[in-house]
Each structure stands twice: as structure tokens, then as C-alpha cells.
């Protein structure tokens, strides 16, 4: 028994150490200032009408491996000012994954969808099914429920006097917790199992084969959303919402999620 406890304490200690050193707050402690100053610098460029420099500076933050909702939003605005609505749309969609309820983002996204005549596309399908919350918000809910569950379980196990009164609540929390875990897991799977992308060139010829003079199958306009199925030597196999499939040049398309 002593060995089991020792193992538990060791595991707990390991978790705390990993938590302490891998906490994004600690890691970002020194880089956050740099990222913030780049952000403000880019904003200054934007305000001065130097949209190319603004976009370049926003992209610099991204190239360092960090992102935020406001960053994607501003980047999208920058691309819009540079007359690249496709890249603007993709970045608004990325911003939506961080801040799905932001009204400014909603307005601009709706505006650009209208401008690109994409009203009939089901854009919301691309973002988590529970489009009103981010994955991390769902995780926070699960964590809260789990914490409640642990607390109630401890009461149930060690306070026999009030055991009966917490039993019902414990079961309710347990069921809610399980449903939340299942639901979030389903959402994460659905979300990250797919690989949506946006056409960023003014028009893109989709071919039967991944070669320059391959027969053109159909054409896609800027801003259209497709699903990436395969990547091969600078070409991308995509399928559109009508399930038509074909090959595009990788430079004509930009995936919405970076983890792919």
C-alpha cells in the first residue's frame, strides 16, 4: 500500500512540475512583451495606411508560433484593405475559433461573406458544432464539472452524515460531466478530423490530375471553402461542398487550421 501511495505522490509531483514549467503563462512571460509590441507596431502601420507593412508585422507574430483572436481579426482587416478578400476570410474564420461571440468579428465576417457572395455556403459547419463556444471554453466547463464531481465524491466517501443528501446531486453532476466529455470529444474529433481551406486566388482551376496541363474539372472563385483531402508535391486534392473532387495548386488555397 505504501508503494501505491508513493506512486500517487510521485505522479502528482510530476504533474505539478510539468504544469509549472509548461504553463503557457510562464513561457510567454518574456515573449509576450515582444508579441505585444509587434502587435502595436502593426496597428500603427495600419492606422497610417501602410497595410502591407501592417500585414507583414502581424504575420511576423504568427511566424513566431503565437496567435490570438484579435491578431487574426486585424490581419484579416489588413488583407481586406490589400484587396485580398480570400485571405481576409480565412483569417476571420481563424479569429472565430478564438472569439466566436465577438460582434465586430461577426459583422466583418458577415460583410465579407456578402461581398464574396457566399451566403449560401454553410460556413458555420467549419467551426465547432457548438459554434457559440470555443473548445477551450468547453474544456473549462468540463474541468469545473470534474472539480465539482471530485468534491462531491470526497464528501460522499468521507462524510457519511451528509452522504445521502449529496448522492442525488452527485449523480446529476456525473451524468452532466459524462455528457459534456462525450460532447466535447465529439466536437473536437469532428472539428479537427476535417481540414477546411479557403480559395485565396481570384479564381482557381481544379484539375483531374496534379499536373500543370491536366484537364480542368471545374473552377472555384476566391473565398470558396473546400475540404483538403491530400497534399502532393505542391498540389492539393480538394473536395467542394457538392463533393466534386480535383487538384489545385497549393499556392491558391489556404487551410484554416494550422495544426494540419
Amino acid at each position: 500500500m505504501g508503494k501505491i501511495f508513493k506512486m500517487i505522490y510521485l505522479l502528482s509531483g510530476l504533474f505539478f512540475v510539468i504544469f509549472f514549467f509548461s504553463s503557457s503563462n510562464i513561457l510567454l512571460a518574456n515573449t509576450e512583451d515582444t508579441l505585444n509590441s509587434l502587435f502595436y507596431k502593426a496597428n500603427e502601420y495600419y492606422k497610417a495606411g501602410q497595410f502591407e507593412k501592417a500585414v507583414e508585422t502581424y504575420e511576423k507574430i504568427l511566424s513566431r508560433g503565437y496567435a490570438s483572436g484579435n491578431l487574426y481579426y486585424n490581419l484579416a482587416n489588413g488583407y481586406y484593405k490589400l484587396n485580398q478578400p480570400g485571405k481576409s476570410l480565412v483569417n476571420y474564420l481563424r479569429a472565430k475559433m478564438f472569439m466566436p461571440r465577438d460582434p465586430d468579428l461577426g459583422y466583418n465576417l458577415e460583410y465579407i461573406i456578402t461581398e464574396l457572395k457566399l451566403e449560401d455556403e454553410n460556413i458555420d459547419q467549419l467551426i465547432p458544432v457548438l459554434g457559440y463556444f470555443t473548445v477551450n471554453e468547453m474544456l473549462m466547463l468540463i474541468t469545473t464539472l470534474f472539480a465539482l464531481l471530485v468534491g462531491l465524491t470526497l464528501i460522499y466517501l468521507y462524510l457519511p452524515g451528509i452522504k445521502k443528501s449529496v448522492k442525488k446531486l452527485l449523480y446529476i453532476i456525473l451524468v452532466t460531466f459524462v455528457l459534456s466529455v462525450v460532447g466535447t470529444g465529439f466536437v473536437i474529433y469532428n472539428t479537427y478530423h476535417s481540414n477546411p481551406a479557403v480559395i485565396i486566388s481570384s479564381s482557381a482551376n481544379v484539375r483531374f490530375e496534379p499536373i500543370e496541363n491536366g484537364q480542368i474539372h471545374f473552377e472555384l472563385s476566391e473565398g470558396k471553402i473546400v475540404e483538403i483531402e491530400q497534399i502532393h508535391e505542391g498540389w492539393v486534392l480538394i473536395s467542394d461542398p457538392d463533393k466534386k473532387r480535383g487538384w489545385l495548386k497549393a499556392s491558391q488555397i489556404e487551410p484554416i487550421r494550422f495544426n494540419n
Partner: protein
Amino acid sequence: MVRVKKILMIFLILLLITLFSTSAIFAEEIKVRAYVNDTQLTLGQSTTFTIEITGDINVKRPDFSIPDCKIQYYGPGTQISVVNGKREEVIRYLYSLVPLKTGVIEMPSIKIKWKGKIYSTEPFKITVVEEGEDSGQSLEAQIKDYVFLKIEIPKTKAYVNEEIPLTITLFYHQNIDLRNIHYPEFETEHFIKGNFLEPERDVKVINGVFYNTINFKTTLQPISRGKYSMGPISLKADLVVPRKNSANSFFDSFFEPEYDLIPVKPILDEVNIEVLDFPAEKPENFTGAIGRFSLEVSVTPENAKVGEPITIRSRIYGEGNLKTVTAPHIEKTTDFKYYQPSEVNSSSIQQQGTKQKEKFFEQIIIPLKQADTIPTISFSYFDPEEEKYHTITKKDVKVNIQKENVNSQILNYGSLSPIEKVEGRDILYIKGKPDNFRKRTEIVSVKLILYNGILAIILLTAFLIKWFLHREHPMLKRRREIIKTTHKMLIEGENLLKQGENSSFYSLLYQTIQNYLKEMYGITITGISDYEIDYLTGAGLSTELIKKLTDFFQIINEKRFAGYSGTKGEMEKLLVLVKDIVNG
């Protein structure tokens, strides 16, 4: 008639006074000054004494004498130049001056008469020592009257964040060559030092000596209340000292410099500055601006519809610390939606001969209802000269907001109704502040996963502790298992009894008891003798139980020898006896 004459007389007198005063104001003036090449002389050493008159080269040479000195006139030198379109005439009367005694000799003020007016030069002193006399001073001490610093600071009492202009002037004698002049250095622990402006060169005369000057201008901004010392202030430079006959040949002078560079570091003492905090009773929207400012507000577009963004552009300009100026406050009402203001640009402008600064802010608001004015805008600042707060308010700034004909995009966001594209729209402005950054490829927060891991460990630990505290003793568990096995055997015995399997029944009971005693007490018994009684007594069995065991073995051994014959009643009794023993 008399009255008219009186009025005319008064008018004439006033006219004359005006004419004379005007002519006095515009009358030309001359400037006079006197100076020597060197104020530190040895007895008998000669120096040049100059009387300089600027403004008219026809001014006569003055008559004067200087006690304890021999004066000999060399001659005049004139100079006529045009500076910024203005003609400037300078005449210098040059004399040789030889002191006749050691000590401090006063150079008196020289009087010069010009156009009925007397002009006087500033008196000054020279120091005369014996030839060969060496004060034993260090280089620094020797040159301290030739190279030194002075500071100009308009106030030594200021408020937090108030910009205090500071001018540090380097003076060095006209006969001294200084190279590699650095900017002044000083500690500013409780102040923010501004950047130095481009240094300004000039020439000044102090105590009759010509000095070249360099002005270093900057600003100091105190950051906290208290009494502080700023400095000491120092400046590094290299003094050019000619070498004496260093070249051995004509050709050596090409390869070796004929001078040495000796580092010098004039130092200025500390300056005490008292920093005050802002007075209490600050205006509600005061955010720390200090200086004297004005506010201008404009709105674009002036005509808009409900739901369309309006930009309020504010210009704040004036004198003071522009860094402390933040966006003006706008009154919050439910008729508008407000976005964060952002600074557009700031600059320094020349206005009415004084250098002023300005800052521009833009703030977007979206009208939610019809309106003809925007909310009141105000800006508060503290004037350190008047030591008072001021609040500039702009009320009733006109704007024409009309009701929207179609549903506004902003108002209907979130509804499922189809939205019609509205002409003349644009995207909303960028976000002014960065959000919390996280790793781009991070799908879920690592911290949340770790929190859940810790909770799981706590839960597991709780269950384990609970199990540990309430678990059975191994012996009890073992006993329970043995009894369970024994009961199974007894159930089988019952079945054999029902089936009338006498032989198997008795064998099973015998085996059951033997097994039971072996597992429970570690003893294999075929019969009960004194040895077994002692053993079983020592194992904790009661006398009654030992008696039952004795009875059992007696019966079973009898049956074994009798060929396992017996009535059903006997068999049932034996089964009950075994059960009693096991349950004992």
C-alpha cells in the same frame, strides 16, 4: 475757444511724447565689451586686452587706465558683415596688458561715449602669480576655470510627469581646443530623461574672457513624488595639448601627431529638485495630463444612418508633456455603441514662435438611434504654472443621424433573418489591444488538461485511501474464503445425503473437516487425542468445539469401520454437527 486750445495742447504734448519714445525704441544701440586672452598670468607676462564695440565702427577709442598694469595700444581692427540681411559693424581696440604685481587685479569698467550716451563694459578680474610658481594642482584643477559646465533649469519644484526643460552648457576657453566631446551624463533615478536635441554652439564672455560654448538641451520628467538630487553632471572630452619639440627631424612630423589628447571631465554638482504630487480633488476624467492644452473635435461623416460607424477625431495641442495626454473622455449613453479610441499621430508644430505639440485620437461610435449631436466630449489636464486643474468640454457637436431603412447589420447580428447588402458600408476598425496569445498549434489548453489530471489523481487517491482503511485483514479474508469453500462442500454433502450416497457422504464430511482444520489451524487430524486437544486448545478453540470435534471423529471412525452404513437421521445429525463445527 479756450477749451479747444487746451485740447490741442494736450494732443500736441501726447504726440511729442509718442514721437520721442518711438524714436527711443527704434534708436540704434551699440554693444560694448572688454576681455583678455588669459585671466591667469605670471608677473611680467603680457596678454592682449580688447575693447569690442558692435554697432558702429566710428566710435572713438576710449580713454582709460588700469591700476597695477602697463597698457600699450596696438591699434584697431574692424569687421563689417551682413547677417540675415542685417549689416553688422564691429571695431576692436587692441592693447597689450602687462601686470605689475602679483595677486588679483581688478579690470575696471571702461566707459564709452556714443551719441550722447555712456556705455560701460563689465568689470572682471585677472590673477597674477610669480613666474615659476607652481600651485601643484592637478590638470583638472588647473583647467577648471577654462573648461567647465553650467546648468539652466527653470524650476526646482515640479509636478509628477511635468516636463522640465534642462540646458547644460559646456564652456571652454577660446584658446583651448577640445575634441571628442560627449553628451553630458548624469544619474536620473527618479526621472525620465528626454533625448538631447542637436547641440548649439555659441560664444560667451565671462569676466572678460571669451569662451566657446555648446548648449545641450533635454527634458526631465519626474516619475514620483519626493525630494531628489539629480546629478552630479559630467561630460567627457579630450583636451588637445601641443607637444614640445617632439619631432626629431622634419620627416618625423609627418608620422607623429604634434599634440596629445588628454581626457578631461568637467563635473557639475547635484541639483536638488522637489517633485510634488497632483493636488487632491481631481476632475473625474483626469488621467494625468500635465501642461496647457486645447481641444478640437470633428466628426466624420456628419450625415449617417443608424448603425453606420461615425469617427470622432480629437486634436489636443499645447505645451506640456504630450506623453501624459490620453484620449478625451466621451460621455457614455445608451444611444451609441462605443469602441476603444486609438491614437493616430502626434507631432511638434511651430505656432506663434513657441514650439507646441499635438496629438490626434480617433474613436468610432455607432449610433443606435436617431440623433443630432454626439455625446459630450471632455478632456482634463493640470496646469503646473497656475497649479490648477482645467476641463475642456465639447458639448452639442452636431451630427445628423437618420433612421436606417433596412435592418442594421449591427443590430440584427445573431438573428436568422436574411440580410441585404447595404451600399457604402465598410469593415469595422481593427482591435486596438492584443488578446492573450497562445501557441498557434495548441488545440486545447495544456493547463486545463493538467488541471483535470490533478483532479483525477485526487479522486483516485480518495478511493484508494477509502479502500485501504476499510479493507479486510488478510487473515479474515482467508477465513472467509475457507468458510465459503467449506460451505460449498457441505452443500454437496447435503446433496449426497438426499441421493443416499452414504459412503460418499461420510467421505466428504471427513474430508471437509480435515480440510477445514488444516486451512484454519494448520493441523491434519485423523482422530482426537490429548495431543490434538492441547494443540486445538492452544489455537483458541473452545472446549465445547473440541468436544464436538471429538464426537465427530468418533462417529466418523465408527462409520468407516462399519462400512459407512447409517440411517438417514444419523447422517443428518452428523451433517448438523459438522455445520456447527464450521460455524463455531
